């Protein structure tokens, strides 16, 4: 891509990433949540790859990392759900075992923000892994 696209990407990419994190962290207060924020974070990475070309980043290392992150994110989700079964006292899967706090504060709603973070990691890593798999397939197999 041209220097204009590269420069704009350099400036805007971190802001998009931060916005995705904001959407995930404030998922229990404002519209959005794990799915939307994760997709925004994946979009920041895809923008970076598209504008700087697939040679710029070490894609295979990136793909191993994102695949690992994606697998561990769903494990974190399950571990929190099982913890609710053990610690919660009522023995119900997926129970909200942390104190709820006051509605509207950033640290409230018990385990819901933790679920949001796990799902956000899962979605971001999954979309990025699919995009990287397509790119590596083109570089590896078609040439």
């Amino acid at each position, binding site marked *: 891509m041209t220097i204009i696209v590269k420069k704009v990407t350099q400036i805007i990419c971190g802001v998009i990433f931060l916005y995705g994190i904001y959407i995930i962290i404030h998922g*229990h207060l404002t519209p959005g949540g794990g799915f939307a924020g994760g997709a925004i974070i994946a979009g920041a990475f*895809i923008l970076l790859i598209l504008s700087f070309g697939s040679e710029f980043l070490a894609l295979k290392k990136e793909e191993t990392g994102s*695949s690992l992150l994606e697998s561990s994110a769903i494990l974190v989700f399950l571990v929190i759900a099982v913890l609710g079964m053990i610690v919660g006292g009522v023995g119900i899967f997926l129970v909200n075992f942390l104190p709820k706090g006051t*509605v509207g504060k950033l640290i409230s709603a018990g385990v819901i923000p933790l679920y949001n973070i796990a799902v956000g990691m899962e979605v971001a890593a999954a979309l990025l892994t699919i995009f990287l*798999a397509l790119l590596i397939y083109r570089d590896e197999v078609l040439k």
Partner: protein
Amino acid sequence: MELLIIVMLVLMIGGAIFSLEARDLLSAVIAYGIVGFGLVICFLFLGAPDLALVQIVVETITLIIMITVILNSTREEVKKGWKKTTAYAVLAFVFIGFFLYFFNRATDTLTVFGDHAMRMSKAYLQPGAAETGSANLVTGVIFDYRGYDTLGEATILFTAVIGVLTVLRLKGRK
């Protein structure tokens, strides 16, 4: 409000029909984008910012991936061996009439547009914020009342990624 949604729906149907008929695949994909982004505007009119946020991001990423695929393969549509005869046209009209009749019967039993059925949602709306502690009720429903649903969705995403990696990657395929 309803008039604006109807205008958006007509625009979306037009984009969908154009993307079916276009010879150039790139313009077909871009016309298909009208459907997705029109849906975003409809969600905003109907007061669903959560869905609009997800839809706009997913639509943009999908459009980028589809354009990348088209630029790397072919732009011309491959000709289909499709004969346009009167029998097909008659059959199409018969099916349109058939489905229109049952669609009409089904919509007669629904409530008026914009008038929500409150029987079920009352149980979530009124005690929702107090029970889950979440100010955004959508997140509260997704992660508390419908936790199994979200777990299933995350599992589907995980399985989809494993499927893509299994098909596309050479690593470990020996």
